[in-house]
């Protein structure tokens, strides 16, 4: 959370070197900030509220006479939130499941997207539509049949049960196919002349060039499956194979009103690894930006 709340990064003066170009650049930059900052304030306010609430006492949350900030920061909300369930185990499971899904998906979508983008074969359009069926069909309508399948496979109440329905991704295949088709054909042709086969071209030419898309897909896949709730709840029983959102459900899903302070503390804990992951990975954008310029 620290990176998000650090105002220093924002206000850090751009290193001006006095030239006209740089001054103009500085101006342009600040103009953008003027435009973006109000929007940012709008977007970030729910997060500010989450963090502030996670540090309040229960009484302060809705008391109209209490200030916006807690009188005394209640850091104890965090350990108290973590005590409702074995969050350590949940965290490890979330990492394993999300990581497992991501790796499987990256493999399947890369192969499939290449076939759709660059190979010609009979039934291509029909097959592509079949891939899209996965995103069109409401996921809740698959749960029952998939529950039976997972049980037949003997993996009910285990981590693989949380992974297998998401190994193939029509979504990712579509996304990557679009990116592959953006790669200028001449690059592939040149590689072929150098004696590269299809897989070689895929590995050496296409994948490096679509890195931003791969990164974007990874971020989206991780964020999506990190927050899966209904499916894990249905197919797991033991604490040892459950994931973070189920822990969060303990604080939120009830008929007595939410446990606001601890729910918000747990939310911060659940979201933090994702935010860290995002900050690290989106920097890769800038790297691949330079690579892409090689054309």
């Amino acid at each position, binding site marked *: 959370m620290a990176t998000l709340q650090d105002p220093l990064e924002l206000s850090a003066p751009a290193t001006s070197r006095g030239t006209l170009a740089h001054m103009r650049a500085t101006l342009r930059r600040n103009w953008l900030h003027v435009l973006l900052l109000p929007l940012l304030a709008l977007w970030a306010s729910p997060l500010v509220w989450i963090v502030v609430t996670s540090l309040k006492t*229960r*009484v*302060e*949350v*809705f*008391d*109209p*006479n*209490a200030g916006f900030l807690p009188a005394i920061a209640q850091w104890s909300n965090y350990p108290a939130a973590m*005590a*409702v*369930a074995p969050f350590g185990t949940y965290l490890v499971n979330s990492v394993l499941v999300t990581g497992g899904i991501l790796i499987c998906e990256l493999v399947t979508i890369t192969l499939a997207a290449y076939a759709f983008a660059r190979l010609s074969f009979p039934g291509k359009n029909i097959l592509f539509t079949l891939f899209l069926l996965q995103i069109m069909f409401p996921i809740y309508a698959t749960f*029952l049949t998939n*529950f*039976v*399948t997972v*049980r*037949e*496979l*003997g*993996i009910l*109440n*285990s*981590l*693989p*049960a949380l*992974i*297998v329905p998401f*190994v193939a991704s029509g979504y990712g295949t579509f996304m990557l196919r679009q990116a592959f088709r953006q790669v200028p054909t001449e690059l592939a042709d040149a590689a072929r002349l150098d004696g590269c086969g299809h897989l070689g071209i895929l590995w050496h030419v296409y994948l490096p060039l679509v890195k931003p898309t791969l990164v974007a897909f990874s971020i989206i896949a991780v964020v999506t499956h990190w927050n899966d709730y*209904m499916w894990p*709840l*249905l197919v797991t*029983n*033991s604490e*040892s*194979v459950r994931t973070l959102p*189920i822990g969060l*459900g*303990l*604080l*939120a*899903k*009830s*008929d*007595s*009103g*939410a*446990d*606001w302070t*601890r*729910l918000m503390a747990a939310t911060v804990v659940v979201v933090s690894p994702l935010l860290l992951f995002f900050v690290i990975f989106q920097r890769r954008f800038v790297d691949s930006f330079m690579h892409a310029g090689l054309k």
Partner: protein
Amino acid sequence: MSVNSTFSHISRRGVLVGGAAAAVAGLSGGRAFASDKVKLQFMYPVGVSGDINRLVTAMISQFNAAHEKIEVEAIYAGSYDNTEQKVITALGVGDPPATWLPINSALQTFLGLDALADITAKAKADDIYQDFLPGFLETCISDGKLYGLPFQPSTPVLYLNKDALKAAGITKAPVTWTELLDVAKALTIRENGELKRWGLTIGGGWHDWIFECYCRQNALVPWTKDKVLFDKPEAVDALEFWVKMVQAGVMPPASTWEGSANDFMAGRTAMLYHSTGSLTNLRKSSPFEVDVAFMPKNKTFGACQGGGPIMIARKQTDAQIEASWTFARWMTSTQVQSQWSRDTGYLAVRKSAWETPEMKAYLEKVPQARVALEQAAYAGAFLQVPGYHKVREYLKSALDRTLAGSVKPDVALKEAADNSNREIQRLLRRRS
């Protein structure tokens, strides 16, 4: 659903995905065998947010330690709805948990699936019929047979913002509907035509539950086990009273369950109908003193039960049913109930639990808890009809549309009753 009949299809497909299964099988832990212990699963929801998971886990390990022949595994299954879905899905594949904790309204649903063990004989041989509060026990009885032991009952009650009452010069909680309207008027605050505080809010999302209480206050139980009676004059009269409160500008036409609890804590409404299960949360989170009162009466006092009993699966061996019974019996024993009630704010189900010294001390400290207990004397089961989920939706929609002013109470309730009864008939035909 008939999963059994399709197993052959699945197995064939199983070959197809067999490779995948083999690849991941290494990760899935096998089940422990070789033990003469009877193993039981217990699926439970979290009705009160917070520490329930920890409390239940502690109770289970205490039970397991005391019973060397039985091992219970507690499985948190989400909300009441989630729990019901998880149990029913497992029932569909013939693999239900040994025991579970649904909302009491689900009784007919599970009976329709022929899923429940009849525990009347066991209960009669025990002190269940003597020591359990009759209103609570009634929620588990169908056709004179007992299908579960009440574990965490709740009812709606009227919460009052004591500071607001004091400021308005009101010294006692309203006892009748007429008084309720008067008090709500006195507590409503408007400044320059803009509303600052409602006199009363009826928690949305479960307002059909509270509506049944209003029907019961008009001496009508708005259902029998095979039909609903929402179109009776008593029910129409109750809804007309709600409309009157909305038109008097003392009550919002709609709210949400979460939102209404927040509204009360934030002083947006001075009185609130909500579950007794919310007592601890509201008491600890409100910046003012919270009082609890009976829901006001009209012809009579009346309330209906939320919360849930522990139910036992029918399709298991006698040894398993016996062990399940031992477990359910232990969970509803005097000491356990006394502790559970004090930890959560749910009502203890046994008379003897209320007589324990710890409970008496607690009631000294939190006299509000006694109100719910006393009101429970007037409480019956909530909407125990087949397909209660859908019936609830029909009723809620009728209430919402009436309060929003788009339809007349009698028309809306007639429509809801007709739709509900058609659905109930469909399910009953299906069952026979």
